[in-house]
Every structure is written in structure tokens, then in C-alpha cells.
């Protein structure tokens, strides 16, 4: 699959501070790529370099084969962008905004279709300054689609939105993928990335901590699957003595790591035969959020410098 975005050794410095410190990643065309990281990690700087809004200090960047900084005018006909907090002229309605963008791009978009796509039909004639935060983001999304972009950059498009509005944006992202467009998504919401993205990259302190498919990253960086049972502390002690395993007890809950699914059956059998009271068992594994917190914590503590290719290598 051809690449929509290619980044090699990208560095962006502000005086001595390296906001982006030599990162590499590739986004295949037609995929949804989520770029994750805590505040100040370098997400927005990277995204703005890809959009052609900011120049880089060094490194190679190609979006649809074009250099975003020098080929910006050509590139901007092929990408759509929603910034973190979309702004527009206050007294202009969504319908007028779409017509305006159409005239700037030299296209004739149908405002009704675009507004329906982003679920903003009922506000088509409302002035921008009367729209809610979610409605403004939806208009931003509609405007990003005016020129039929091949790549959409969505910079934290759901931050601050209510669950209903967030799900509406998710649906649009899925539609874009179905239409074969590439989506480059930055987000704080790990659940969002896990639900929508084919590939993710986690960035912290300007370096990539991990990249790959969400399931690969969880498998590589997450802990083992765990069995969770509700019971008294005596049961935890019983299992330690009987099976010689590590059992963690906290507020009526026992947790132990599983080496394989069959372990769960064996442990439950021992629990059942203990004669001690127990209830409510379940197995659980790390989410992308658990892995994110873990990796970012390791980088903050200096344990992990950069582990960019570990997930990819694991596959």
C-alpha cells in the first residue's frame, strides 16, 4: 500500500529545546493513524509540520509525495485539516462557510450534503458565534472535506465534546476510511484511538515511545492477562500456599497473572475446592490507555529513551 505520510528523522528545535527529536513513522494510504501523547509531547508540532503550517529544523517529511513546507499550495488541495480549536468568522453561517471555501478552492460543494455528513443540517443557517463547541468542530470537519481531500488531519477533534458529539465525529472518521481517505488523528482519548485507528504512534518528549497496531502495542508493552476474583484475604493466602503463585489482594479483590488461558481454569478449581467464600471472577488485560500510561511514565522516569520499533519488530 502506498504511503500517505512518510516521516524520517524529523527534528524541530526552538532554540535549544527539541520539541520533536528525530522521529520516524509511515502512514499507509487509506488507513486511520492515531498520534498519541501527553500535553507538550510534540504532537501538534509534528502535525503542523505535516500540514505545512510550520517548518522543520531537519529530517524528511513527505505527505502524498510532497514537501508540506515548500509545496504547501499544491498539497493544500489534497489535504483537509481541522485544528485543535476550530475558529471561523463569527457572523457567517455553516452553509455560507462551505460556499466560501468552495469558491476559495474553485469547487462547487453541496452544503446540504456536507452538513448532513457531519450531522449539522439543523444548524446550517445559524451564525458561527451561536454554535456550540461540538457544532463548531463539526463545521471544521465539513470545511476540511470541501476539496475532497485524500488525507485528513484531525487535531484533537473531539476534545471537550459531549459523548454524543464525539460519537458523531467518530462516525465521520469511519466514513472517511470507508471512502478510502487517510486520516491522521491526534487525540488525548486512548479509547478513541483504540476504536478508530489501524496504527498508532505514542510520542513523548519529542520521541516515539511506541508505534504499530493497537493490539500489537498492547501485546508488546502490556502486562500478561490477569484473573480477578472477589474474596477474603484468607483466599489469597490459600492460593499462595497451594499453588505457589503471586496473588495481589486489594479491597476484597484478588488478582493473579495468567501464563495461559488454561491457568484460569486450574486456579478457579482450587478456589472452588478451598471452602472459602468467593464470587464474581473475570479475566482482564491491559488497554491501550494502560500501555500509554506505562510507557509515558517510563520515559518520564528516564527508564525508556525510545522504543519506536519494538512493536513493529515484535510482529
Amino acid at each position, binding site marked *: 500500500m502506498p504511503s500517505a505520510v512518510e516521516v524520517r528523522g524529523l527534528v524541530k528545535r526552538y532554540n535549544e529545546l527539541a520539541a520533536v527529536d528525530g522521529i520516524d513513522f509511515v502512514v499507509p494510504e487509506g488507513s486511520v493513524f492515531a498520534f498519541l501523547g501527553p500535553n507538550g509531547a510534540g504532537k501538534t508540532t509534528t502535525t503542523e509540520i505535516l500540514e505545512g503550517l510550520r517548518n522543520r529544523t531537519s529530517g524528511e517529511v513527505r505527505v502524498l509525495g510532497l514537501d508540506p513546507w515548500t509545496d504547501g499550495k499544491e498539497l493544500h488541495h489534497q489535504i483537509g485539516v481541522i485544528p485543535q480549536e476550530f475558529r471561523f468568522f463569527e457572523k*457567517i453561517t455553516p452553509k455560507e462557510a462551505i460556499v466560501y471555501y468552495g469558491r476559495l478552492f474553485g469547487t462547487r460543494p453541496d452544503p446540504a450534503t456536507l452538513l448532513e455528513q457531519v450531522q449539522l443540517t439543523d444548524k446550517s443557517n445559524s451564525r458561527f458565534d451561536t454554535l456550540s463547541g461540538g457544532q463548531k468542530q463539526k463545521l471544521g470537519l465539513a470545511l476540511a472535506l470541501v476539496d475532497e481531500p485524500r488525507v485528513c488531519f484531525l487535531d484533537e477533534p473531539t476534545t471537550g465534546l459531549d459523548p454524543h458529539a464525539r460519537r458523531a465525529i467518530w462516525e465521520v472518521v469511519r466514513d472517511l476510511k470507508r471512502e478510502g481517505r487517510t486520516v491522521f488523528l491526534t487525540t488525548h482519548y486512548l479509547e478513541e484511538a483504540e476504536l478508530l485507528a489501524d496504527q498508532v504512534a505514542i510520542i513523548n518528549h519529542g520521541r516515539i515511545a511506541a508505534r504499530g497496531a493497537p493490539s500489537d502495542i498492547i501485546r508488546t508493552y502490556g502486562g500478561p492477562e490477569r484473573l480477578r476474583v472477589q474474596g477474603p484475604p484468607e483466599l489469597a493466602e490459600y492460593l499462595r500456599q497451594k499453588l505457589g503463585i503471586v496473588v495481589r489482594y486489594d479491597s476484597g479483590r484478588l488478582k493473579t497473572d495468567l501464563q495461559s488461558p488454561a491457568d484460569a481454569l486450574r486456579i478457579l478449581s482450587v478456589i472452588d475446592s478451598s471452602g472459602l467464600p468467593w464470587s464474581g471472577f473475570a479475566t482482564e488485560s491491559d488497554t491501550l490507555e494502560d500501555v500509554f500510561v506505562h510507557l509515558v511514565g517510563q520515559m518520564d522516569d528516564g527508564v525508556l529513551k525510545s522504543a519506536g520499533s519494538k512493536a513493529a519488530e515484535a510482529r
Partner: protein
Amino acid sequence: MNPRRIGADLQIVARGYFRNPIALFFSLIFPIILIALFGLIFANTAAATVTVYTQDFDHSPTSVAFLQALNQTQVVKVQIVGASVGNLSTYLGQNGDPTGLVIPQGFGQSFREHRPVNVILYTNPQDASASGTVEGAVQGVISAFNLQAACGQNTSGNCTPVIGSTNLNVGGQAYTYIDYLVPGLIGFTILTSPMFSMVDVTATYRKEGLFRQLSLTPLTRGEWLASRFIWYTLITFASAGIMLAMGTFVFGAHITASLWLLPFLIAGPLFFVSLGMLAGTVAKTPETAAVIGNVITFPMMFLSGTFFPVSSFSPGLQFFAKILPLYYVIDGMNQVLLFNNIPRALGDLAVVLIGGVIIFVLAISLFKWRGE
């Protein structure tokens, strides 16, 4: 420059403008209120005794009689000032006095010998009521002298006026306050509409990231600025039309409509749209931009001849006024509308155009859509 994109942006600006009552008020309605207010105030000022500062260079019985007659009208009071004050016009300007009269040397002899002689009357268009009163009184006394002295001795009955008057202010002609107010208020619109708006828009759009969003479209900085320039030129045309119509038909201003006005209605907005953008660009925040905008705009608003002719200022203030670009816009329009002095108007226009182009180039080079 793509006309389609400029047109699209212009339409957005116009929509935003017409949906913003405050912007509309200050651009089009406020100047109307000003002209109505000033016009009515000066039109309705009650007549009272007006002091006429007089230099009598003749000191003849005729000149003394002339001044006594003037005093006897009861509407003016002659106040003699010596030749030591120098040029009376300058003296009046420096002291803020509205009217003055000069009796030239040889006045009495000319009068006796029936040779034409003129007194020089200075009036100030700021004070139309006082000027009118003094003009009326002086003309009345002149008529009486001509009739009694000249015609009375002329047995043929052929009354040739001997005494005349030269009515002067800075322009060399008698103009009313409203005559100066019309170009002044057109200048007011040329200055305030683009300056206040462009300073705010430039700083706010940059802070809110709207310019960065626009940079992701094919619209260029030059096209964006062009659409603003066209819009404020249209606003200026509308305002100028209203001012000229109100001044002429409501307040009877003595102005001559001329196509030479048009270059000023284009060069003026070019200058101040660019200056507003430059001020908004160099300021780090919208708050700082507002302060910079006010520091530039307010002195210019009052010291460039907008409400009061610059000729009525002290020499120091006149010097300062001539540093201000709006002075050349208003002076140029005065030359076109009042004095028909096209060569001087072209000089003013050159100053505005050259300054406008420099500011435009500076603004466009410092103004960035996107960051490094």
C-alpha cells in the same frame, strides 16, 4: 491575485460587516451624527457682540471713522492691536481669536481720491456664526461709506464703490465651518473604519489561529489584504457620498464635487488598511494591538484637520499635524473640494500614495500566515 477568491472573501467581509451593527454604526452612521451635530451647533449659535482684532496701518480720520462706525453697529467690538504683533492672520491663529480686520496704509487717501481700496477681513470657519456677524457688519459699514462719501459727492449719480473688502482665511476665500467639516469627516471615515477594524482583526485572527486556517486554503495574504482594501474603499465611497450630500443639501456647504476626489478615496483606505494591518501584526496580543491602534489613531483623528482646520492650530501643532498622513488626505480633499487647487492636491496625493505603498509592502512582508 485571483479575482474569484478576492470576491469570495469580500462577500464574507461584507456579510460579517452588515451583521455587525456596531461596525456599521461607526463607519456610516456615526459620521452622519457628527456632521449633523456640528452643523446644527454652529448653525444655531446665537449672535452676540463679536470682537474684531484690528490693525489700522493708516491712522487717518477716515480709518478712525470707519472703525467707529463699525463699533456703532453694536454687533462687533473693534479691538486695536499694534503692528508689532506682525501678521494678523498668524496672530489670530496663535491666540485662537476668530476674526480680524486690517486697514491698509493709504486707506484714507485712496478714499478721498476715489481710488479703490480694500480692507482685509479675516474670519475663522470654525465659528461660522461669528464670521457671518462680522462679515455682515463690515459689509454694512463699507456700503454706508461708499454711499455717503463716494456717491454723495458724485453728481453724475454714477456710484462706483471705492471701499471693498478682501475676505481671507487660510485658503484666501471665505469658507464656513461646514465646508471644512465635510472633507474632515470623510477623512475621519478613511482613518477610523480601516484602522480600528484592521488592527483588531489582524491581532485577533492571528491569536485565534484563523490566519493559519486560511493559510490551508488557496487564499493568499495579498488576496486577503486586497479584499479588505476593496471593502474599506467601498465604505469610504459610501461615507463620502453621504457626507457630500448632507453637507451640500442640508447644511449648504460650498464644496465643488470633483473626480479628483476619487484618488483620495482610494489612496486613503490603502494607507490605513495597511497601517492597521501593520499595527496588528507587530503587536503581540490583541490588547497591545488595541493600544497601538489608539495611540496612532486618536492624535491623528483630532490633529489632522478632521474637526478643525489645521490653520487654526498653533505653529507647533501645525508642524506636528504635517507629520500625520491623514493631514495630507484631508488637505488634499480640501484642495479639491474647496480651493480647486489641483497641483497642491496632487502633492498631497503623492505623499499618501508613496506612504501607502511603503506601509503596504512593510505590512505584507511582516504579516505571516504560518509560523517558522
